[in-house]
């Protein structure tokens, strides 16, 4: 039996800057993750539906154009409403420090800002989903 870590990487909202999301998706792939990549202009509803159908362990949200305080909480809210508040939500993009605190309080697990090494994200996810040693 093998258990792969499945992660949904999504560009949320009206923001077409997908370079970062693609770099992260690619890095996760190379680290042995199964990455569902859904492309740009995703609504919170689309992201949550996809995450539930694909039964991912984590969602990575990318947003660079300023609407994160509207969109990220919406994702957390929908996940809880649909009984999948257990799915880990992380984010990346241009997120000011004060906003980070608010988002953590709402249940976001981690926010990675510009300059983050992809290895940090990989290590973080691996530590979260490490299988207990037999």
């Amino acid at each position, binding site marked *: *039996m*093998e*258990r*792969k870590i499945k992660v949904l990487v999504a560009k949320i909202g009206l923001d077409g800057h997908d370079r970062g999301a693609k770099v992260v*998706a*690619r890095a*996760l*792939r*190379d*680290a*042995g*993750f*199964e*990455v*569902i*990549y*859904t*492309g740009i202009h995703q609504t919170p509803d*689309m992201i949550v*539906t*996809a995450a*539930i*159908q*694909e*039964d991912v362990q984590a969602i990575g949200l990318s947003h660079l154009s300023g609407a994160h305080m509207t969109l990220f909480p919406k994702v957390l809210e929908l996940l809880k409403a649909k009984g999948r508040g257990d799915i880990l939500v992380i984010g990346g993009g241009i997120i000011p420090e004060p906003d980070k605190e608010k988002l953590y309080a709402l249940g976001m697990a981690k926010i990675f800002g510009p300059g983050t090494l992809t290895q940090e994200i990989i290590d973080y996810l691996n530590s979260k989903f490490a299988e207990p040693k037999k």
Partner: protein
Amino acid sequence: MAQLISYVENEDPRAPGILKALYGARKKPYRVGVTGPPGSGKSTLVDRFALLAREQGLKVGIVCVDPTSPFTGGAILGDRIRMSKAAADPHVFIRSMATRGSLGGIARTTEEVAEILEASGKDIVFIETVGVGQSELDIFDAVDTVVVVLVPESGAGVQAMKAGLMEIAHIFAVNKADRAGAGRVKQEIEDVLHLAPAQPWEIQVFLTQAFRGIGAPEVFARILDHRKFLEEQKRENTRVIRIQKKLKNLLLERFEKEVVKRPEIEAKLKELSNKIIEGNADPYSASEILFEETWKEKSKS
């Protein structure tokens, strides 16, 4: 349901129980395979088919397969990008799968995942393969109807005469038909099809532009024709053959897991490989020894 699928995909110990319970719960399931080279527009076409099926009130399941890296074991599953229309419909369930080492164009558990979708009440399930070349043909045994998607650059002609991919189609779609050469490719496939002896099912070739929705309704209508054809033909025969193959595969998997992968056998495998490297054995005699050992192990258990 999504979590049941994960159990099956991860070959969790709970999976056989789930599959046993669900197999009989399916009502007249119908499965369509969509295959073709990478970038030919399979996902976009499936998106269109899903919408057309929804218009007829059918509940839709979609399983899309993308390749696993043989180097890292990771995968990028990107088929959902092209399925945004279908994804917005609550009666459409889309699940992406990585091949996880399987080489036939679908994953080892793709059929089982389709079975779960069927048991959940989906009337029609589309399976989209990885982008294929000529010989990844597992889809043929997993579905009722196969649609092969090509593009004008596929260069039909003699390609259409070759064995493999071109033989498994019940329907052809030449997609991206606004590009030059589409009509010629269609013509060439038709010419080659005419060389074969007449069959009760006529394989037709359609020009499509999936992105604009052009041609998709005609292909979908033809899929439904094929369904009717199979019902009238009493498809029991083909189904029995398919189920025989499935049983054989299940048997082989079990054998691999419980006999071949036993530590004693793995150790012997390593020992013999070393011998071969050192020049003290050849692979052919070694495989005979392995077979004998495996057999012994099996009778012991």
